[in-house]
């Protein structure tokens, strides 16, 4: 078998669509194992068609423990398709796929968590929340566009880079500049978060009346935000703080 006998476009497209179900059977033991095997299955069926024993071995390879940030999974998935092409052609050792996946999933998980959950989601959420004060649908549209613009682009380009080979995947991860993009989005999120705190704070301060009352309320707001940030950093859950407020609220009503 030569590389021209590799996975055709139609099958590659099918694998690309299936990556959206990477967490479809998320579990504590194998995490995204079933989702990964499901995603790559059309490629394996194509490569090992008519060789059921080899197909079983290949599927089992991908049912091993796997966990990464789901939007970054496309890179590993694309590269895995490429490696499986080589294994099917007898050009690579089947163990290479496990080594490659284990080697990359941890670092991609860390990069993806920091970018998607730690920077992009807060930025999109706070932008959406601010604009929802003008009109709900404007807020929702901005939230979805800001997040999915990057999300779908990274899934698409990452998968294409992976399909071009492991070196291309690593090159993509270097050139994508995730560290600087994460930092940029964190700054935007912080600016928008500050704008949100300032806007909602001034609304209440206005009810206090005079300059002294407003300045006092502003200082209390800053201290509250600072204290809460410290608590969140010490792994206190927002739920615990909200439950505490609920108890205070119940006591107010009780009186």
């Amino acid at each position, binding site marked *: 078998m030569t590389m021209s006998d590799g996975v055709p476009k139609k099958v590659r497209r099918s694998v690309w669509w299936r990556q959206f179900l990477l967490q479809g059977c*998320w579990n504590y033991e194998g995490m995204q194992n079933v989702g990964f095997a499901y995603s790559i299955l059309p490629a394996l069926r194509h490569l090992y068609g008519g060789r059921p024993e080899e197909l*079983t071995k290949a599927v089992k390879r991908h049912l091993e423990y796997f966990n990464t940030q789901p939007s970054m999974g496309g890179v590993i998935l694309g590269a895995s398709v490429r490696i499986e092409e080589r294994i099917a052609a007898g050009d690579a050792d089947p163990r290479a796929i496990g080594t490659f996946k284990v080697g990359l999933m941890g670092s991609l998980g860390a990069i993806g968590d920091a970018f998607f959950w730690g920077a992009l989601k807060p930025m999109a*959420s706070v932008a959406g*929340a601010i604009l929802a004060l003008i009109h709900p649908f404007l807020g929702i549209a901005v939230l979805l566009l800001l997040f999915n613009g990057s999300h779908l682009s990274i899934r698409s380009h990452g998968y294409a880079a992976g399909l071009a080979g492991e070196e291309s995947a690593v090159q993509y991860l270097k050139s994508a500049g995730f560290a600087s993009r994460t930092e940029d989005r964190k700054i935007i999120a*912080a600016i928008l*978060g500050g*704008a949100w705190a300032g806007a909602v704070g*001034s609304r209440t301060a206005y009810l206090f009346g005079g300059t002294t009352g407003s300045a006092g309320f502003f200082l209390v707001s800053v201290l509250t935000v600072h204290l809460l940030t410290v608590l969140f950093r010490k792994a206190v859950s*927002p739920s615990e703080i909200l439950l505490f407020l609920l108890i205070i609220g119940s006591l107010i009503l009780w009186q």
Partner: protein
Amino acid sequence: MVWAFLLAAILGAIAYLDRTAAFQLMLHRPLVVATAMGAVFGNVYAGAQVGAVLELLYLARLPVGASIPPDDTGAAIFAGTASAFASSSVGLDMGSFAATLLLSVPCAELGKTVDRLVRRVNGRISALTLEAVERGDSQAVDHGLLAGVTLFALAGAVLTLVYAGAGMAAGKLLLPRFGPESRLDFAALLPVLPLIGAASVFSCSRTERTAPAFYLTMTAVFAATLFFRWMG
């Protein structure tokens, strides 16, 4: 009303699928879900109002590795429904607004527990899939994934019905039991809630460079909006 609950269950199932099992397009975010529930139960603006505050409250907890953050989708289903029922022709009063947000916290914690349970059952599905593949049945992977996705969707639909029912009870029966004065007293807690959201965003994005950006913007926007309020 039956149709409204049916529609809510379908939307809830989609939102819960988006949360973990499929796509992650952010259709499960509280702003989207609370607005949708508000629309289904008769007041889209009341839903969006609570959704905007809820959107930020739980951001501090990241879904990293095996950790499961509080179920803010469930909290939004409850709060969106409750706010739609509690609002009048003039909108949602401040006391009901605060109460709706705080009463949604148990939903966020219950959803987290159910999520853990679903993931444990998925562990069994994964083990069965592996056994079937070892017998040479590669189709078992398709079936295993379908089972997992169905489980997430069903759990989401059931949770949605429970939260929407609880939200209706809270908005229609519980909140009106307290008079306007009691609700106004309760509204004293309202200013803290958006600040929790701001702190949640800040704790995610906090670095040496972002801290001055956050506090300077907070000061500038506070002063500017207050100035315009006094002028206008």
